[in-house]
């Protein structure tokens, strides 16, 4: 019967091309608007590292005091004093300090201009913690951290630029006139949102080309390329800065059980209490240990614009649906005589339901195809509407294609329920009465 109903539906849709076009357009535009904005929303709210997001934790310890923070939320980063103390205690199986630096890469070829590249100074554990993908060599070791070794990991893009994509492990890279030995080359890696550096990037950035040991960067007095917040003026000089109450370093840990997390949190509370006792801080411990998604949520990584446009376009879809309900109602009820005859000739209510829902489904498929085309255009057009860092993440992938079609069909079938119910209520006898 499906084929029969489909044939009847298509015939009926062809009969009123204007009405059909209106419905298809309503569904198409509604679906396209919501899918386009959803693609942006999805990109901004997605889990950047799904395989590990529940075992990676950011650490916050309040070094500013309740008067200098808002809503009890400790600063986004930590002081050098606290980071080194927590690293030394080693209460989590893997832990990594990280802060952004900016370096100029000086090519060996004197004829080429220096290049400015984003870089991170981090502990060796970070590579394994974040599953960073190596294509040559490997990460530096904890031993390198200890020795403050002058080593570096670079990305494929930089390797292509400096070494034409050849094997560069063991070669030197010149950063601001200082030589670093390359121990590994990794694929271009920038999970979006850039979860481990949200406070400095807003969550969306191209990622870095160079990674060097945290300990070495401190030796070289490389300042952070990100935010630096101080509640007290630091003493003069680099050493004064390191011992100041300025926050600028992120600390991430990897923990696999609730017990480990509890131990770590207890330790942090104990550490903060100790600082209070020692007179460094005059406030109760305020510690936050959040996994990746909790952290992204707390830092409100999803741009306001993205959520607002999603809400508005969902409203838009609802209006398109109401519109379709009205048009379908008009279309179906115009055929009340036909329904009466069909019922008299033996069509049951479910036959009528099937016939009209399938007709609506056909509108849904047409709307879905139009919606798909418009969504495709929409995702291309997101650069007009959203900043480039975010817009480039919105793409029409198979999941989105499927979702678009599904939304269109479900939407139109949902819209068809009331009109179809009305159609099925048409009494078979009705048409027999004198008309």
């Amino acid at each position: 019967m499906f084929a029969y109903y489909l044939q009847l539906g298509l015939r009926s849709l062809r009969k009123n091309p204007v009405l059909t076009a209106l419905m298809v357009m309503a569904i198409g535009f509604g679906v396209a608007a919501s899918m386009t904005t959803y693609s942006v929303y999805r990109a901004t709210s997605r889990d950047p590292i799904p395989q590990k997001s529940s075992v990676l934790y950011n650490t916050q310890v309040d070094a500013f005091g309740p008067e200098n923070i808002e809503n009890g939320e400790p600063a986004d980063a930590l002081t050098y004093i606290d980071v080194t103390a927590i690293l030394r205690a080693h209460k989590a199986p893997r832990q990594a300090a990280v802060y952004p630096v900016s370096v100029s890469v000086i090519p060996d070829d004197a004829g080429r201009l220096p290049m400015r590249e984003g870089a991170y100074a981090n502990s060796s554990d970070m590579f394994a913690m974040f599953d960073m993908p190596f294509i040559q060599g490997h990460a530096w070791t904890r031993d390198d951290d200890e020795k403050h070794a002058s080593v570096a990991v670079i990305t494929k893009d930089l390797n292509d630029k400096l070494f034409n994509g050849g094997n560069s492990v063991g070669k030197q890279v010149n950063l601001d006139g200082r030589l670093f030995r390359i121990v590994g080359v990794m694929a271009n890696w920038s999970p979006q949102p850039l979860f481990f550096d949200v406070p400095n990037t807003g969550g969306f950035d191209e990622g870095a080309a160079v990674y060097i040991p945290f300990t070495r960067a401190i030796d070289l007095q490389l300042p952070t390329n990100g935010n630096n917040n101080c509640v007290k003026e630091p003493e003069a000089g680099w050493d004064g800065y390191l011992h100041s109450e300025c926050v600028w370093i992120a600390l991430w840990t990897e923990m696999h059980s609730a017990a480990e997390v509890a131990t770590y949190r207890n330790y942090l509370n104990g550490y903060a209490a100790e600082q209070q006792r020692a007179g460094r801080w005059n406030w109760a411990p305020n510690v936050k240990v959040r996994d990746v998604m909790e952290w992204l949520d707390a830092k409100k990584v999803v741009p306001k614009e993205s959520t607002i446009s999603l809400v508005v376009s969902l409203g838009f879809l609802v209006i398109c649906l109401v519109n379709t309900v009205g048009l379908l109602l008009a279309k179906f009820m115009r055929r009340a005589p036909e329904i009466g005859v069909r019922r008299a000739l033996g069509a049951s209510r479910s036959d009528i339901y099937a016939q009209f829902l399938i007709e609506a489904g056909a509108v849904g498929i047409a709307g879905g195809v139009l919606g798909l085309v418009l969504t495709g255009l929409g995702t291309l057009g997101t650069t007009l509407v959203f900043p480039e860092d975010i817009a480039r993440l919105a793409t029409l992938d198979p999941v989105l294609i499927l979702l678009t079609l599904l939304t269109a069909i479900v939407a139109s079938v949902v819209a068809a329920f009331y009109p179809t119910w009305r159609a099925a209520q048409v009494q078979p006898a009705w048409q027999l009465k004198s008309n």
Partner: protein
Amino acid sequence: MLKMTHLAKVYRTEVVETYALRDFNIDVKEGEFVAVTGPSGSGKTTFLTIAGLLETFTGGEYHLDGIEVSQLNDNARSKIRNEKIGFIFQAFNLIPDLNVFDNVEVPLRYRGMKAPERKQRIMDALERVGLAARARHYPAELSGGQQQRVAIARALAGSPRLLLADEPTGNLDTQMARGVMELLEEIHREGATIVMVTHDPELAARAQRNVHVIDGQVVDLSEEPRFHAHNHAQTARS
């Protein structure tokens, strides 16, 4: 074949109760051709809609082909309509969006018949009413008489046990009406049971038996003065 005993049909609104049928008794035997006559508003159309399972009734019993139908649900009623009853309406009731072939096909589709059998039956039925050549025409392209013959073909295609006709010639001119009537008589001769509602005594006379309805009840015509029916027959149906 069709047996109603003490059947009642009441239309209730907030204000009044109207009896469309009260203590209605009729027994149509297999192979009979019965004309149901009566004045406008006497309840004969109500009788037909109940007989055709298009409407439910309020009291009494109705056996159709041996089945008591008052307890059946909508699906079962649809099935009986589809398999046992053929309808011929005054206004033809062809679906304007479907051509002749597709119109005749409608009841067969709901019966879930295979395509070759459907085609065979449709062509046979159209052959029967002399319209096989017009299978691809749309109702709007046919005359009234032709449309009614398509409707009869549609009623016949499913080989129903019972044909119900409601003023089958009411919308036709005399010549076309004669053709349709002859067709019905021929179908009857071949063994079909036909119940026809009409207010036209001439038409009624061609049936085997007449049943007269007044005020929702079957009356014995022999006790009723004949002119009574004639008077009412003058009031045209709206």
